[in-house]
Structure formats: C-alpha cells, structure tokens
C-alpha cells in the first residue's frame, strides 16, 4: 500500500501540464441571456465560447459547479463581442473568464439519433442515455447550389386525401402549413409522419419534428402518439420548449436541418417539420433586441427574411452525383385572425414552394382537415404526383372549382335548375369524401381508389350527410375485398384499364350490399 501511495505522489510531483495559449475575454456585463465580453478580438460569428466558472475559484468550489456554460458569438464589436448564453444565464457573472473554443456551433448527428428526443444542441432529453456513434457538424451551413440539385419528381405522401390529391408535396420541396391557432396545423404534420409507415422501409423518409416554443405537455403528447403508432422507429424529435432560453428556440430549426442533411447526404430521404417558425422569429426578435440590433417592421431585425430563407434553402433534392438524397421541409406558421399579410407569413409564403392554408371558419364548420383548397397551392409537387393520383386529381379540382362558383346559390336550393343542383350536391359529396379524421392517414393507393370512386359517381346514391360514414365503410370493404386492386395501384402507381374494370366491379358490389 505504502509503495502505491509513494508512486502516486511521485506521479503528481512529476506532472507537468502542457497547455498552449488560449484567447480569452472577460464578461463586462450580463443579463437576459446575453453577455457583453471584453476581448476575444479574433472571435468569428457563430463561434462557440466557454464561460469558465472554475477560473477564479478553489478546486473544491470549482468541482461543485464545474458544468461548462457555452455561449454563441452573435455580435462582433469594436472592443469586444456579444454572445448569447446557451444555458443557465444566472451562472454567468461580471468579470468571468470566457474562452474561445475555435469552432462554430456544432451538434452531433448520426443514425443513432433516430427514435430519440434531443434539444437544440443535440443533447438527449428523453432519459435514454447518451447518443453514440455521432459526428459533429456545424449548425449553420451554406445550402446546396443549383448544380448539386435535381428536380423534385418523387412524391412525399402525407396520407391526407385533400393534400395528396390537390396540393401534392414532392421530396425536396418546401411546403408551408399556415393558419390560425387550433385549426389543425400540427395534426397535418403529425399525420404526415404517421403516414410514412405506409411507405416501403427502403424508401421511407426519416422524419424530424422540431418543436419550437411549444408547451412541453404538447411535445410529450406528440412523442407518445408517435411512439404508440410505431413512428418513433423513423423519427427524431428536436425540442426547444417555451420554457427554454430564446437562443435554443432560435437554434432548434437549424439543428433539425443539420440532422436532416446528415440523412440526405447519405442518399436517404428526410422530412423536417418546423413547428413553428413564427415562434422562432419571435425568439430571434428577442435576441436581436437584447443584442441592440436596430429593430425594423414589427420590431423584427432587418435580417429576419434571411433567417428563414437560409434555413428553408437547405431543403433540397440532391443530384445523383451527390447521392440523390432529399430533405423536404414542412414549415408551420401561425397567423393572427387569418391575417396572411403580416410580416412573417408573407416572408415565408414567398420563400416556400407552395402553401396549405387552413381556415378557422372551415374548421368550425366541421371540415377536417380545414384546408382551403382554393388558395392552397403546390408549385412543384404536381410533377412528383403518381399517375394514379394525377388521373383522379384533375377531376376533383374541376368539380370543386365549379362547386365553389355555385356555392353562393346554395341558400336558394329550391329555385335552382336540376343541373346546378346536381353540381352543388356533387361538390358537397366531394367535400365530404375529402374529410378525414385525425391520426387516420391513408396509403396513396387507398386514397386514389376512394377518389376514383367519388369522381365516377359511386357516392351519388348517398345524401351528402351520409357520405363520410359511407366512405369509412368503403375503406374497410376495400381493405377486405379489394386487396388485388390495392396491390395493382400500389405496384404500377397507376390506375390502368384492367384495374378500372376491377374497380367498377368492386364499387358495384359495395353499393349492392348497401342496397
């Protein structure tokens, strides 16, 4: 024993640290999650710094509070820098030593993130232990250029008839989901994740759900819902709850994009949902004002457009030379009283490749999802639609457009001519067919067959109020007796002549049973 103690004492006596030169600064002032730092004249934008709580304390005190506090440099000034504190700001004090870390803010990414819930810095928050086999990538990076991209031509099915039929989303597209609070924006996003279970495993996109400024109870409910449906097998949740510092809420979407890019660069497909970017904009406004940047319209800083454009530009469909992977983005924006002409909504509308408008009026009328198909649009997705969907979608669009024209005359129903009445009823039936409950995404072949039935008049024997119930029964019937037809549409991605013949027979059989 004595010899061991003597040996360790010798080791300590001979220990010679070889630490090199580091660049340091001193905290001049701190408050509201922001630190003004003297020095660090060589620091660069978005570089990480370390606030060292151990520097001017004894070892015993230092070890009690040794957890590092990181900061992110966001303002470079004449005699110092301003940084946001990524953590507990109350531990940072005036005169505290700050070290440059010489690296940009990075997060760990890797396949092992799948199924996990992480914060904006990629640290696990689900209590399932550390995440292994990861590599660090910068949270901010340049989006891929024109030559590295290929056109969007593969569909990303949401499982929602109204969207896949009329506002299709392609892999690599950026489609905005916009509407007031409580009209079903998150529901569409979650249903889209759930629907990926219907995709073959080899082409199933990895889904990343980024919760920004949400209540933790809501995020917990979503995680539980995804886990229960088995969707966490291909999903990662990045959370920056309302209780987290504004810096985390500003960074979370970038973390989600970096994770998505990891899968895209590996030649896979990924889907990232930013829920929601209005809250990110508010967090960024808070940071900018505290950093004393000049406020602009609605007190947002001048670079608020660039904040969203550089984030959404990272969604891409890569060329075959780059591996052919894709990153699809579904940003969500919350409007106030349906006002889409506010600053942030107009910015994001102009950045994205289309938008899905959800209306509170439709929602209150019982239309679920409450999509206004008249003003919703997808700018690139239609070229990614399957032949089967294309065949049926053009007819629903026309029928619904005619219905909208005549909708105003509905109150004079008794005075209308039979043709107009028929068109109105047809539109009402089609609207009912497009209704879909929460958590009930449908595989594209099932959607195509139901819409095919609707445009071929197989719901004409029902009163509009009976259509929803009939459609539910039809789904069960097709799943039971139309396996061959479903398989035919799934494999060919088309409704061929022979399939059409079989579908006519199938629908006749269904209606005969009703009779």
């Amino acid at each position, binding site marked *: 024993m004595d010899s061991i103690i003597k040996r360790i004492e010798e080791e300590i006596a001979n220990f010679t640290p070889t*630490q090199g030169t*580091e*660049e340091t600064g001193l905290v001049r002032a701190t408050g509201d999650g922001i630190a003004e730092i003297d*020095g660090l*004249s060589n620091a660069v934008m978005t570089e990480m710094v370390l606030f060292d709580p*151990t520097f001017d304390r004894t*070892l015993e005190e230092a070890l009690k509070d040794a957890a590092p506090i990181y900061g992110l440099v966001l303002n470079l000034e004449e005699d110092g820098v301003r940084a946001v504190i990524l953590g507990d700001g109350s531990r940072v004090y005036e005169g505290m030593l700050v070290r440059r870390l010489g690296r940009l803010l990075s997060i760990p990414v890797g396949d092992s993130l799948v199924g996990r819930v992480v914060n904006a810095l990629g640290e696990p928050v689900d209590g399932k232990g550390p995440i292994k086999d990861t590599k660090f990538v910068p949270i901010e990076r340049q989006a891929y250029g024109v030559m590295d991209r290929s056109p969007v031509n593969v569909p990303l099915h949401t499982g929602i008839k109204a969207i896949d039929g009329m506002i299709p989303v392609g892999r690599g597209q950026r489609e905005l989901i916009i509407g007031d609070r409580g009209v079903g924006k998150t529901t569409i996003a979650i249903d889209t994740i759930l629907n990926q279970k219907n995709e073959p495993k080899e082409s199933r996109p990895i889904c990343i759900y980024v919760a920004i400024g949400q209540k933790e109870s809501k995020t917990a409910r979503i995680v539980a819902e995804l886990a229960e449906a088995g969707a966490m097998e291909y999903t990662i949740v990045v959370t920056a709850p309302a209780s987290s510092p504004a810096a985390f809420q500003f960074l979370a979407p970038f973390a989600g994009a970096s994770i998505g890019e990891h899968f895209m660069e590996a030649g896979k497909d990924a889907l990232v949902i930013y829920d929601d970017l209005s809250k990110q904009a508010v967090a960024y406004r808070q940071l900018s004002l505290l950093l004393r940047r000049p406020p602009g319209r609605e007190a947002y800083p001048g670079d608020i457009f660039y904040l969203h454009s550089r984030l959404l530009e990272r969604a891409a469909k890569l060329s075959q030379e780059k591996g052919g992977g894709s990153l699809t983005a579904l940003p969500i924006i919350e409007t106030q009283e349906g006002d889409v002409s506010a600053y942030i909504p107009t910015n994001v509308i102009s950045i994205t490749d289309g938008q899905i408008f959800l209306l509170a009026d439709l929602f209150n009328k019982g239309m679920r999802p409450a999509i206004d198909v008249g003003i919703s649009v997808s700018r690139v997705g239609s070229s990614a639609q399957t032949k089967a969907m294309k065949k049926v979608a053009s007819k629903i669009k026309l029928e619904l457009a005619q219905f909208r024209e005549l909708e105003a005359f509905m109150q004079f129903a008794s005075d209308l001519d039979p043709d107009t009445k028929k068109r109105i009823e047809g539109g009402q039936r089609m609207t009912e067919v497009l209704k879909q409950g929460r958590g009930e995404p449908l595989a594209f072949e099932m959607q195509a067959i139901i819409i095919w039935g609707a445009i071929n008049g197989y719901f004409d024997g029902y009163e509009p109020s009976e259509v929803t119930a009939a459609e539910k029964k039809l789904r069960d019937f097709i799943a039971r007796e139309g396996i061959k037809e479903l398989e035919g549409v799934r494999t060919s991605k088309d409704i061929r002549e022979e399939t059409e013949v079989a579908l006519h027979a199938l629908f006749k059989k269904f209606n005969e049973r009703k009779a």
Partner: protein
Amino acid sequence: MNLAHVYASALVSSPEGDKAVASLVTHLQARGRMKLLPRILRELTELRERSQAVAPTLTVASEAEKAQALTDSAALGFTPDTVVIDPTLIKGWRATKKGQLIDRSGKRALTDLYRNITT
C-alpha cells in the same frame, strides 16, 4: 457606443497626452457640451480598470515554483508586470496578458479531467 466613450477612447489612444485633454475641453466648451466631462471621466476610469484587468500577470501556485514559472513563461515570450502567489492553483502556473491565457496549473488539469469524465 456613446459619445463619452468615443471621446475617452480617443484620449487614451492619442499620443499628445495633456495637449489632447486641453483641446478636448476647448472643443466641448465651444460646442456647449461641458456636461459630458464627468461622463468622459467615468469612461476613462472604466478603460483604465479594463486595461489593468488584462495587464500581464503571472500567477504561481507556490513561492518555490516562481523561478521555474518565470523561466518557462519567458520561453513562451511572456514577461509579467506582476507575479502573484495563489495556492488554489495546486501546482504549476498560469499567465494572462491582453486576452491571452496560458494555464499550466494543476487546478486546470484536474478540472478538465473531471469534466471529461463527468460530461
């Protein structure tokens, strides 16, 4: 950045010393801004404190290690204005100078080791 800070910084960086102060006072009188003088003084005091905080300092764990620390730090091009003895360093030394830090103390090594193990 306020006007008082700008004037104070200009005075500090001016090679003309007293002449610069006199010129500044004349300028402030001519502009009717003599009220700024106390604020300029406050800014100057802050600037002095800040420059003292970054003055070259060598901190050594014990008197016995002082000579070796001076030799080692000089080999790295470091000449301290002041040398401080701080036993909380446990062993070794650390040198600070205008935003540069060389920390070769036992405390730093042990803290880093603790962090690597626990985080």
